[in-house]
């Protein structure tokens, strides 16, 4: 990615994503944006606000309400020289496109021995915490992460949202871009055009020496808050933000866990057969002798996502994270 001029602005994650789309469209005429309500309305979360006005209806357009069609058309456009960025309106609304994603988006490069590549991004507003009704709050990352051929990314900050989306659009591989809905309105100073670590790179968000919290997407602020509370109680927690689920940054994660010897994975998705189980397995395989205690997980329960009034029971909160940290067999050390 070649973005040289830097520009400091205070942006919400939603605004940062909008800027990333706009800057990518300005930089490359092959970038096209489409999906449901992304035109005049600017998307239900306003991520595509103003793009049709600025770039015209050929570059940002509303489509019929059919997710498999949206993704399938994006496959064809990507086969024919374009870089489509499509929006699935909500996590659970992406399921009609599942066959296209698994059987074609993920496999086209392989089944053509690299001749047909699909430089496309599927943006998915995902996860809960906004009081959404059913089918609007799913954490669907495991379905995608389990599918070879896809990159799966989940930013946790406005700066990463901007940088990772630019990276995703520039990537020659298809990227599932998971946008934590509850962080759309979080705000920070963003240095547009600054080099951010690429897809496949995790970062340590907070230094700490006693235990490592591993989080991604919507769980990162929870982990950071837990670390802040723990610091007040005299315990130093390190926070790793994965940023990218696939490729997975074993190196950064394992180095972090080795440095503390204890870890808790925090994720909103149901815990059974999940990304969090994969993290525990791989870190345990690699860092067994550095661990002072089994790695704990704080995840969503294995239930359909609950209604708004009950969702706080489902979401990993600071207290549950700190309880899990307390269980890391400190008496033995």
């Amino acid at each position, binding site marked *: 990615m070649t973005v040289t001029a830097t520009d400091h602005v205070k942006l919400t994650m939603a605004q940062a994503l909008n800027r990333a789309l706009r800057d990518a469209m300005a930089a490359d005429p092959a970038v096209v944006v489409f999906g449901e309500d992304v035109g005049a309305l600017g998307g239900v979360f306003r991520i595509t606000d103003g793009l049709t006005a600025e770039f015209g209806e050929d570059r940002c357009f509303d489509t019929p309400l059919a997710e498999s069609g949206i993704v399938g058309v994006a496959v064809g456009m990507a086969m024919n020289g374009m870089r489509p960025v499509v929006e699935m309106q909500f996590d659970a609304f992406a399921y009609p496109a599942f066959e296209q994603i698994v059987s074609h988006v993920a496999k086209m490069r392989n*089944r053509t021995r690299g001749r047909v590549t699909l430089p496309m991004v599927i943006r998915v507003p995902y996860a809960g915490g906004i009081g959404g009704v059913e089918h609007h709050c799913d954490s669907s990352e495991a379905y995608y992460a389990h599918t070879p051929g896809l990159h799966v990314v989940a930013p946790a900050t406005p700066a990463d949202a901007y940088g990772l989306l630019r990276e995703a659009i520039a990537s020659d591989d298809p990227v599932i871009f998971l946008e934590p809905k509850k962080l759309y309105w979080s705000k920070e100073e963003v240095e547009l055009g600054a080099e951010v670590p690429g897809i496949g790179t995790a970062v340590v968000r907070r230094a700490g020496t006693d235990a490592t919290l591993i989080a991604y997407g919507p769980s990162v602020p929870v982990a950071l808050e837990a670390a802040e509370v723990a610091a007040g109680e005299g315990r130093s927690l390190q926070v790793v933000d994965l940023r990218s689920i696939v490729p997975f940054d074993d190196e950064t994660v394992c180095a972090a866990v080795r440095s503390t010897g204890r870890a808790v994975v925090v994720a909103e998705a149901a815990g059974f057969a999940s990304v969090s189980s994969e993290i525990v397995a791989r870190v345990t395989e690699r860092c067994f002798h550095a661990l002072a205690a089994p790695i704990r997980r704080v995840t969503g329960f294995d239930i359909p996502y609950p209604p708004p009034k009950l969702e706080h029971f489902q979401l990993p909160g600071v207290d549950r994270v700190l309880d899990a940290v307390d269980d890391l067999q400190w008496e033995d050390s």
Partner: protein
Amino acid sequence: MLIDPHGNAVDASGYAAPDGPALLRAFAALVTARRLNDQAYALVRQGRLAVYPSSHGQEACQVAAAQVLADGDWLFPTYRDTIAAVGRGVDPVEALSLLKGDWHCGYDPYEHNVAPHATPLATQLPHAVGVAHAARLRGEPTVVLALCGDGGTSEGDFHEALNFAAVLRAPVVFFVQNNEYAISVPLARQTAAPSLAHKGIGYGVPGERVDGNDAAALLTVLGAAVERARAGGGPQLIEAHTYRMQAHTNADDATRYRRDDEVAAWVERDPITRLEAHLRERGLLDDAQLADITAQAEHVATHLRDGLNRDVEPDPAMLFDHVYASPTPQLTEQAALVADELDREGALR
């Protein structure tokens, strides 16, 4: 219908028959198509192909689909459309890669603008719309011909693709080969629509039915749809009525769901004998020409046989090479594991 089953010209007002050279070209392609279908079927029995869904009986559709397209146009085939892909210039040995049991489609889709054949049903149709829409946005004259069968018209992607194409006015011709059966399920159990061409009505896509065993009618109808799409007229849906003369694949037993006399009735309507009779009647084909055409078909069949009889040792390392532009660290580890296993196996030998 422009030529009846006995080879006689039929007067169909508003439809001009293709000229002699176009018909002769189609006939030569039909003879090669039948020879390739039979050769591929034999290669399955010899264990050289894993499976072959034959287009025996449907060759006129295959040939016409390839012949009506211009250079730069795209073809989106299904697994039963090997012959159409070959008609666009794809080497038959490469075209059969997936059916041989390989992990890749064999050919470079950009060399002849032929998409890798789709195994899931109708999922290639939205891709066809996307290719056409991208071309249209750039002002290119590309037309996309997207193939599917009668069973495929029940899949959601068929309907989504028609709707998208209509809304986007994408230059796509959807060409349905209605061969009466989706594996064992007859058309009457597939749809209650008066015809498959009717399915375009709900989307504002004009539909047309054509005799799928009449190469002349197919060339005319498909050719008009392609040129209409190229001129900006939008998508069209063409249903060709034909018949799958053989079982779904070699693994299928058609005697469990259809009667021999039904099959026999379709022998009478064979697309090749019909066109041959017509060309001879018009003095456009004689024995010497037929001998040349047959020899050429034999040559292509020999090429296919030789190609598939060649044993190429698959390299397991390649399974990791094209999953991503550059392998993830995890794939690099896994590839190293396989390489290590192979090394140890080699050392034991």
